[in-house]
């Protein structure tokens, strides 16, 4: 194949060569991106524990000003990994696709304030619960405090799409006569409540505490608790080996007080002891 470079002569050969080289580069680039992701070792030589999480959920996982991911679950993940002699690699994933990601193998476990529910227990494994939790109702601080679910009638309740709060609110919506508005991220429900698009929010207790702590003049937690659903680590269904390791590590950090310390640091109190394991969940 002669590559003709004579001025004025525009041969197909030159174009073909360029096209061939470009496509080779493209293929190489694609193959490089598809590197095998088996059980790799990190810089320290330890096995990597890939953790799926959605860093838009303070105080469990969120980004600080320096764009680092921090939070209760992050400290928990690191503590567990230390006991298991592994290294944590966080895989930020949008919450509404977080379970699909685990099944697809993008990560081994999910530590993202995942509530235990009977439905979820059929499709994945859970560690022993590490935090007590339930869905609570929040309202604006300048409104009258509500104390029963009946008082939600006629209101518009905001929830994050795809969460247990979503399921719970949907179920009670018909029973008590309120509307449910679903947002992609939890922060949007708070912005919406400030703007008046929703009158109440259903969310995890610990998250409610966090937001009220940040802006006590804007929000208040009501006495209404829709569910009881403790939080645990979610593990891929077939991975029983990892399941046992995590439960063992969890037991260790509970025994030596690390778990309690993390709870006190991020939640201002110990919610890790005396967890009510009886699930009262809406499905």
């Amino acid at each position, binding site marked *: 194949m002669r590559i003709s470079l004579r001025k004025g002569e525009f041969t197909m050969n030159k174009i073909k060569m360029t096209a061939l080289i470009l496509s080779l580069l493209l293929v190489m680039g694609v193959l490089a991106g598809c590197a095998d992701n088996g059980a790799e070792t990190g810089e320290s030589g330890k096995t990597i524990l890939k953790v799926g999480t959605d860093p838009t959920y303070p105080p469990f996982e969120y980004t600080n000003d320096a764009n680092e991911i921090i939070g209760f679950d992050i400290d928990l993940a690191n503590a567990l990994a230390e006991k298991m002699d592994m290294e944590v690699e966080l895989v930020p994933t949008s919450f*509404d*696709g977080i*379970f*699909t990601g685990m*099944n697809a193998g993008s990560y081994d476990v999910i530590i993202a304030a995942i509530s235990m529910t009977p439905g979820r227990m059929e499709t994945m494994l859970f560690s022993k619960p590490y935090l007590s939790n339930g869905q609570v109702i929040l309202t604006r601080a300048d409104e009258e405090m509500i104390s029963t679910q009946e008082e939600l009638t006629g209101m518009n309740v*905001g929830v994050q*799409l*795809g969460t247990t709060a979503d399921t719970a609110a949907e179920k009670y919506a018909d029973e008590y006569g309120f509307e449910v*508005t*679903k*947002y*992609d991220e939890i922060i*949007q429900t708070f*912005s*919406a409540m*400030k*703007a*008046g*698009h929703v009158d109440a929010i259903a969310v995890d207790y610990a998250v409610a505490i966090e937001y009220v702590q940040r802006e006590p003049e804007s929000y208040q937690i009501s006495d209404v608790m829709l569910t009881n659903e403790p939080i645990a680590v979610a593990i891929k269904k077939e991975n029983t080996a990892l399941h046992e390791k995590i439960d063992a590590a969890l037991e260790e950090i509970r025994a030596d007080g690390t778990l309690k310390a993390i709870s006190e640091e991020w939640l201002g109190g110990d919610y890790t002891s005396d967890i009510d394991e009886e699930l009262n969940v809406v499905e």
Partner: protein
Amino acid sequence: MAILEGTQRTLLIAGVAIIFGIILGVLIAFFKISRSRVLNALAWFYVWVFRGTPMLMQLFVFYYAMPLFTADVLGITLRIPALTAAFIAFSLNSAAYLSEIFRGAIQSIDKGQMEAAKALGMSYYQAMFKIIIPQSYRRLIPPLGNELITLVKDTSLVASISLFDLLRTVQVMNNSSGEWVYFLYAGAIYLLFTSIIQLVFDRLEKKYSVYE
């Protein structure tokens, strides 16, 4: 069926936006080519703001920020429901892009046309509406079709203000069942509508090209 509702939502928002966008876009285009400096400046500012900021940001402003802003500054809370906020944001945004399309089409008509019209005794406006603008249709149809197709797909941004358009509906179905085939349904539906738009605009273009 949820997918049907999502599709209706998507088409509704795109439809309302293109209609109001065209009306406002024509107005802004005229402001820009007008001899009044004030109108020129107004039009320039409008296009600068609405083309220069992200569509998503504009949605956020009308839905989340507007009530808080008006409460602080004006004392009254102007709250716009989600669907209305979508109509407004997409219409205003489209109008900015469309006004440039219209302006470009009008200004691409040979200056000789305007001179000839004036020589025949027509006023500026008579010349505009009877001679120049009809000739500009041929030029503005391809970019207009483009804008409409882009609009149909941009409506998926309304997921961030709690609305369920076609894509968000399908995403939820995928997440709860793990079946990715739903995305194919959505893709097929988007393709169906963009193809219809393409077909219609091709016909329109042929019709207006008769004299070229």
